[in-house]
Structure formats: structure tokens, C-alpha cells
């Protein structure tokens, strides 16, 4: 029941904010803050309640199931496991920050703004919980329109172009995925006689190799555009740089993650053979993304575009890790999803704060800001270091594990990918140098961070350090999800005997602590 409440409270809060926003400007902010905080507390207390014992069993932590459109075998089916729970916590955490960052940022149509914000979050929550492919697609699309409005109404100068581009890219790729979903639906129906969009039943579907490849690419195109992977990334720099700060935060922190989540949750379990076959190709794309993103990030003069391209680079690591298909890399990927959301989100917030103060995103007009804003400088230092992968901060764990896992799968690609770390050091340090150090450019009085901004940045900083020192909590939470992935990959789906929705991976459960050591020794 908690699952439906999480979505419901966001949608209801959004509507309320919109309605009240017509009379009062301040209320929508408070309403959204309360709604998102309530959701956050619910998720966190759920996590604490179930930690760590529930995360060891193979059962789903929580389910909600009811009929929706029975004629087509569509049900309203939500369920979460460790992976979903991590993503949900992230969603609500960043949701709070998004509301806080737009506290003074948004000056007109406050009610409608918060409506959009909360509905995006609702759509994202739905994506992380949906266990019915139709429902998944439904949520996948729901978040687009509010995001379109968020960029198109409250963005900066070139907002309309960016909003179009974002919408058309994601919608087109989403529709192709929808075709693939329908294809899967009919193949399953013709094989088994039961027409259903239920994830658990579709997992066991026997699909001929050729069709499996086509369907997998149908799914992948949607996720790869969202992630984004070169050459489907061109919407991202525009959307990120034109969106309002909260929009960039949600785009980088959550929307991109839905792509990775989709691959982990749907592509690998549904099409394990095709995924394995084309794994090297996707790893290659990931590596191209790492290098390409990093090089382009270095050559940007627009702060937000720079950060946007670092996202492309970081998401390349995610792609590389997922298609390495081993436990280490999967752990790294999940870490990377969280740490990238925190560190890049923080950089976007910083860019927004700088823009609010000196009204530009151009690096040439910045410089020497540290002396004027020491607190902001210190915060920026932490996240620049996180972005370049300094040990002790979360990103290091993530990227290290991914490279470790990928090394076993493909040595040469990993070697090239490792160069990405050097590049990331180059562009991260460049941010620090151009913005905070160097020659001073005379600006009028600039205020340093106030208490609200310190709360935002401080909580992010604590989180990234916590992730860097205690990643075990995350691994334990996601342990079963990763084991399941390994299980799907090990089952030979090409056999004539189709496996029906078996999630019984008990015999497969391997203690995670031991495995990495074994792998390293090998």
C-alpha cells in the first residue's frame, strides 16, 4: 500500500499546489516541501525497518497489485526490491533539494511550477516501481510533459528549442520501445495463450534469437537515449543547460537514471541472450561516451553545458559496467547511479547559484570567486573532487568497481575507459580553476551561501562522503537484485524448455563479501 501512496501523495500534492498557487505564492512551496519530505521519510523509515534482514531474502519487499485493463491483461502492478528502494530514496531526496533550490529561483507561476515538479517525481517513482510493462511505459511518458513545461516555461533564453529537442528525442525513442513491448506481448501471448503485460510472466518467454535481438534494440533505444549514450546524447546538453536549476538537478539526478534502471530491470532479464551477444558493442559505446563526453566537457565555455557533458562521460561508465555482466561491475553501476546523481546534481545546483548571483553561465566571466564566496568554493571543491573520483568520496568506489568488473570482461576497452579518469581530473580541475581561482573579475557584492543553500550543499556533501566510506549499506541493499541479474544471465533462455517466471534464486545466492576477493585473485 505504501507504494501507491508514494505516487498518490506526489500527484495530489502537485494538484493542490497548482490550485492554491492561484491565490498565494508561498503556499505551493511549502506544500511541495511537505509532500516530498513526507514521501522521503516514508521511504527511509521503510528502508530502516527492513534493513538488513529483508534484503537477504529473494522476495520482493512490497507489492501492490490490482486489475487495470483486464481486456488486455494490463494490471496496476507495483513492486520494489533493493534496487528500486535505492532509486526511490534518491528520488525523494533529490526531490526535496529540487524544491529547496527553486525556493527563490522561481518567480512566476509558482503553483504550476510545483505541479510540474511533483508530477515529474511521481512519474519517476512510477517508473522505478512498475512491474507491468504497459504501466511502465505509462509512467515513462507521464514524466515527459511536465518536464517539457519545466524547461519550456522556466528555462533560460533558448528554452523552447531545448524543450522541443528533449521531448521529441525521448518521445520518439519511447514509442519505439512501446512497439517492442507490444511485440513481446504478442509473442508471449501466442506462445503461452495468456496475453499479459506482467513483467514476471514475460520474463520466462521463449523468444527466437533473431526476434530477441530486434526487441532488445527496441528497448535499448529508449534507455540509451535517456541515459544518454553517444550518438543519442545531443538533446542532453541543451536540455540541461536551458532548464531551471531544479530541472537540471532532476534531469541529471533522476531522469538519466531511469535509463540505466530500465536496462537493469528489463533488458537483461527479458533478453539475456541478446544482451550477452551485443554486450561488447554496448561496452564500446560506453567507452566512446566516456572519452567523448570528457573531451567535450573540457572544451565548453558554458558552465552548465560543461557539467552536462560530464554526465555523458559518467553515464558511459554505467553502460560499460552493465554490459560487463559481473557482480563487481553491477555493484559499481548502482553506486555510480547514486553518486553521479549526488555529485553532478550538486554541480548543477552550484551553477544555478552562481548564475543567480552574477547572471551568467559563461566561464570567461567568472574567476576568483573563492575569495568572495569561500563557503561556496569549499563546497565546489568537494564535488569537483568527487567528480574526478577522489578516494573517500562515493564516485571513486563506483568507478573503481566498474573498471574492476569491466577488466574481466574486456581488457582493452577497460584500459581505454580508464583514460576517462584522467580526463575527468582535467575537466574537474578546470572548473575549479576557471570559476573559483585565477584572476578576479570585478563583480559587485556577491553574497556567500545562505543557510538554505548551505543546507542543500551540506546534505549533499555529507551524503557523498558517507557513500564513499560506507558503501556496504548500498551493496547489501542491492545484493538480491544483483544476484537475480546474474541468475537471469546464467539461465539459457534459448533452450526449448522455457523457464516460467522463476525468481527462485536461493541456490544462486552467493555471499557478496567473498565473491569480489575470489575474483580479484583470479
Amino acid at each position, binding site marked *: 500500500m505504501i507504494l501507491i501512496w508514494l505516487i498518490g501523495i506526489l500527484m495530489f500534492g502537485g494538484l493542490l499546489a497548482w490550485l492554491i498557487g492561484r491565490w498565494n505564492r508561498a503556499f505551493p512551496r511549502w506544500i511541495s516541501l511537505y509532500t516530498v519530505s513526507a514521501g522521503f521519510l516514508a521511504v527511509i523509515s521503510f528502508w530502516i525497518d527492513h534493513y538488513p534482514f529483508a534484503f537477504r531474502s529473494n522476495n520482493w519487499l512490497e507489492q501492490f497489485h490490482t*486489475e*487495470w*485493463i*483486464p*481486456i*488486455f491483461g494490463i494490471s496496476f502492478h507495483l513492486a520494489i526490491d533493493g534496487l528500486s528502494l535505492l532509486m526511490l530514496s534518491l528520488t525523494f531526496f533529490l526531490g526535496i533539494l529540487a524544491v529547496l533550490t527553486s525556493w527563490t529561483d522561481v518567480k*512566476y*507561476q509558482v503553483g504550476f511550477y510545483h505541479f510540474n515538479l511533483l508530477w515529474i517525481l511521481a512519474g519517476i517513482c512510477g517508473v522505478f516501481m512498475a512491474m507491468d510493462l*504497459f504501466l511502465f*511505459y*505509462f509512467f515513462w*511518458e*507521464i514524466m*515527459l*510533459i511536465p518536464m*517539457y*513545461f519545466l524547461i*519550456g*516555461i522556466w528555462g533560460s533564453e533558448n528554452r*523552447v528549442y531545448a*524543450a*522541443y529537442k528533449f*521531448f*521529441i528525442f525521448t*518521445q*520518439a525513442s519511447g*514509442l*519505439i520501445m*512501446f*512497439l517492442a513491448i*507490444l*511485440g513481446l*506481448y*504478442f509473442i508471449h501471448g501466442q506462445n503461452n495463450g495468456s496475453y499479459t503485460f506482467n513483467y514476471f510472466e514475460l520474463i520466462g518467454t521463449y523468444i527466437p534469437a533473431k526476434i530477441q535481438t530486434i526487441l532488445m534494440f527496441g528497448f535499448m533505444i529508449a534507455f540509451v537515449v535517456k541515459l544518454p549514450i553517444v550518438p543519442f546524447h545531443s538533446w542532453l546538453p541543451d536540455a540541461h543547460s536551458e532548464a531551471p536549476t531544479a530541472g537540471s538537478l532532476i534531469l541529471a539526478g533522476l531522469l538519466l537514471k531511469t535509463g540505466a534502471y530500465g536496462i537493469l530491470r528489463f533488458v537483461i532479464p527479458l533478453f539475456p541472450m541478446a544482451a550477452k551477444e551485443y554486450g561488447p558493442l554496448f561496452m564500446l559505446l560506453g567507452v566512446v561516451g566516456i572519452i567523448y563526453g570528457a573531451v567535450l566537457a573540457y572544451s565548453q565555455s558554458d558552465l552548465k553545458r560543461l557539467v552536462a557533458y560530464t554526465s555523458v562521460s559518467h553515464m558511459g561508465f554505467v553502460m560499460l559496467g552493465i554490459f560487463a555482466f559481473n557482480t563487481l561491475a553491477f555493484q559499481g553501476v548502482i553506486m555510480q547511479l547514486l553518486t553521479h546523481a549526488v555529485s553532478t546534481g550538486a554541480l548543477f545546483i552550484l551553477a544555478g547559484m552562481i548564475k543567480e548571483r552574477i547572471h551568467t553561465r559563461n566561464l570567461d566571466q567568472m574567476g576568483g570567486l573563492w575569495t568572495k564566496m569561500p563557503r561556496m568554493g569549499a563546497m565546489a571543491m568537494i564535488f569537483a573532487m568527487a567528480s574526478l573520483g577522489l578516494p573517500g568520496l562515493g564516485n571513486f568506489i563506483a568507478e573503481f568497481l566498474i573498471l574492476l568488473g569491466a577488466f574481466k570482461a574486456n581488457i582493452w576497452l577497460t584500459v581505454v575507459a580508464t583514460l576517462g579518469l584522467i580526463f575527468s581530473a582535467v575537466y574537474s580541475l578546470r572548473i575549479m580553476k576557471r570559476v573559483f581561482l585565477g584572476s578576479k573579475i570585478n563583480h559587485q557584492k556577491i553574497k556567500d551561501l545562505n543557510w538554505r543553500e548551505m543546507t542543500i550543499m551540506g546534505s549533499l556533501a555529507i551524503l557523498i562522503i558517507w557513500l564513499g566510506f560506507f558503501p556496504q549499506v548500498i551493496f547489501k541493499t542491492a545484493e538480491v537484485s544483483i544476484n537475480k541479474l546474474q541468475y537471469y544471465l546464467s539461465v539459457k533462455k534459448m533452450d526449448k524448455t522455457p523457464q516460467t517466471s522463476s525468481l527462485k534464486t536461493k541456490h544462486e545466492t552467493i555471499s557478496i563479501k567473498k565473491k569480489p576477493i575470489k575474483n580479484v585473485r583470479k
Partner: protein
Amino acid sequence: MSESDFLALLPLLILASSSVLIMLIIAMRFSHRIVQLSSLLLFLIAFSSLFYIRQIIPYFLEPLLVVDGFSLFIMGLIIFSSLVVNIISYIYFEEKEESPKEYYVLLFLCTLGACVLAVSKHFISLFLGLEILTVGLYALMAYLRGRNHSIEAGIKYLILAAFSSAFLLFGMALIYMETGSMDFTEISKNLQQLEVSVPVFTTGISLMMVGIGFKLAVVPFHMWTADVYQGAPAPVTAFIATASKGGVFAVLYRFFIAIDGYSYRNLILTLVFIAIASMTVGNLLALKQKNVKRILAYSSIAHLGYLLVAFIPGSSLSLFAVSFYLLAYIFTTLTAFAVVTILSDKDSDAENIQQYQALYWREPVLAFVFSTALISLAGIPLTAGFMGKFYILAASIQSGYWLISIVLILSSVIGLYYYLRIITMMFSGNKKKEVKIRKVHPAFYKANIFTLCLLTLLIVWFGIYPKDLMLFMQNLIMH
């Protein structure tokens, strides 16, 4: 004719007698308001009579007509659209210099024609229905005779419709020559028994397709659409886009099922070609338009293409897909044109896209309603348009028509651009405290807004929870 025959024809009889009744009311020199309200009442009666005759379906009035679940459904859609058109017409025509009263007579006649199409199973009734519909439409399109565009639209439609009727008649004649019958079921019976010359028969069908294709405005018979949509008064455009297309599509479907047109490969190939052409051309031509009515015209061409995609597989699912999509399309289009109508003023229709700039700040309700309608036309979740598109894709993929499904998806992505353009226009611009436009007829204005909100609610409701509607349709159409 027996008593039950009359009962089965109740909706048609009500519509026919309503037009006479309204004429009498006009002759008695009642005001526009009375005329409008009484026609509204009559439409409501006609609509509710559909529920009344639900018990006796299927009912055959040999040889011309059949009243079954499908025709009842289509009639419901047609009468409902006319009802909405009637509601939005009052303010629109009250402000114009022409006497608005005869308009309602014509509206009843056109509705009658479209309904006859929906129940016909014979060439004679088909042609009768079509002509009642089109002759009424000539007058309706040119109703505002002071406007150049209006006259142009009427004459254009007159010439092309007459031309296409000739094609239709010639096609019917050829089919009659080969099969010796004009009844759909008789034709299919004779097709199996007699030695039919296939070239002549397919020529006949092709010629009929030209005629029908013109009425549906599918590519390559679409030339008239944009001009007529633009020139006709906005409520009339709403009628053309919804009721008249619904009726023609229904009869096309019935004819195809009866003669088993799906067994003719060439015919299906032609339909596939028409569908692909309509979807791509319609959406591409809409991209550069600056006139909202023209945009909606081209978008309707594309939507008829989508409907054909559902139509081509010919499975049982495709019948539901067609019905559901027609419903979604008609509701959405009505909403869109209703907004255009409400925003129109005395001198011109609100057709320039610039007029929609910053609408959200001036008229939040209208802007919201219009956005919902456009989003539904674009087929994005939470709206009926999405469920309709899902139905269509399911129907065509089930039967393995991958090519047209992919074309549908790609062209609807193109379509997104111009729908978004209007939406962006409405939400952009500065928040200016403009002088509130004077609402001439507050009561009617409120009624309009109420209707619009109801329609929007239905669009969203069918988009989120279509289960009840689907079950209702299955029960109705399966009978």
C-alpha cells in the same frame, strides 16, 4: 412497415422530424435563443432514443438498413458531436450578421445524413445518406456568405464532392453490373456463386474508394481539406471533422466486412499505401502551417491515416480499435474546435497561431482544455488519444503489420512538433493584465465552458481508466 420497424428507426425519425419542427419554430419567429435551446433538446431526445432501442438490436430493415451495435455506437458518436456543435454554435452565430436560425435546420439534416450512412447496408441508402450529408454541408460551409474564405470553401467542396460522387456512382454501377445486386450481403453472396470478372469488380471498388477517400480526406484525395477547414465557420469545421467522417468511416467498414475486402490483396495494398501517405503527408504538411484551423485539418488527415492502420488488419481487435479511436478522435477534435470557436470574435475566427500567445495567462481554463486536447491528439498518456493509439498498434501488430505501425510511430513523432508548437505558444509570452474580453452571453458562455470541461474530463478519464468504456463497447458491438 411494422411498428417495430418504426421503433428501430426512431433516432432517424426524430432527427428528420426535428428539422421540420425547427423550421416551424423559425417560421413562428421565435428568437435565436429559443431555436437553439429547442434544437438542443431535440438532439438530447435523439441521443437518448439510442439507449431506448438498444434492446431490439440487431434489427434488419431489409433491404436498405441495419441497426446493430456498431451502427448504434457510430450514431451515438455522430449525434453527440452534433449536440456539442449545437452548444458551441450559439455565441458564435449570435454575433454574426447573418440570421443564424436556419443553421440549425441544416445541422439536423447533416446529422441525419451521417446517421443514415452509419446504418446503411445498401448502395441506395449509402448514396442517399451521403448526399443528404454533403448537400447540407455545402450550405453550412458557405453559411457566413460575407466572408470570402467561406464562399470559397463552399464552392470548392461543392465541385469536388460532386466530382467524387460521380466516381462513387460509377463504381457502384460497375459492381452492380457484375454482381447484380446493391445489397452488401447479396453482393458478397453473389461474389462467391457467380462468375465475377475480377478486373471489373476491382475497378468498381477502386472507383468507390476514390469517392469514399475524398469524403474521408485521405491522401491523395485531401486537397480540399485545409481550405475547407479554414473557410468554414469553426463549429461547422468541427462537424466536418467529426460527425461526417465518423459516418463515412462506418459505412466503409461495413462494406469491407460484408464483401470480405480483406481477401483482395491489391485492395489491401492500396489501403496500406493510402494509410502511409495520409500519415506522413498529413503530418508533414502541418509542420509549416501558421493557421490553427489548417493545422487541425492536416492533423485530421493524419488521424484518418491512423484509423486506416487499425482498419487494415480486419481482425476482431481492429473493429474495437477503430471504434475506440473514433471515439477518442471525435471527443478530442470536438474539444479543440470548440476552443477555437469560443475564442473567435465577430469578424474572424481565432485561427492565427499568434492569437494563442499567452492564452494560459488570459484564459487558463481554455488553455488547459486546449492543451489536453492537443496532447490527446498527439497520443500521450493520461489521455484517450494514447489509449486509442495503443489499441491501434495492438491491432496492427497482432496481425503482423509492422511496417505501418512503424510509420505510424515515426509520423506521430513528426506530429508532436506542431502540437507542441501550439501548446508552447499558449504558455509563452508575458503575463499581461489585459482587459478582460467582454463575455457577451454569460449563461451560454458558462454552458460552453462546462461542456468543454466535461469533454476534457472524459478524455482524461478514458485515458486513465478505459476499462469500463472498453467493456461497454464490447457488449454493445458484439451484439
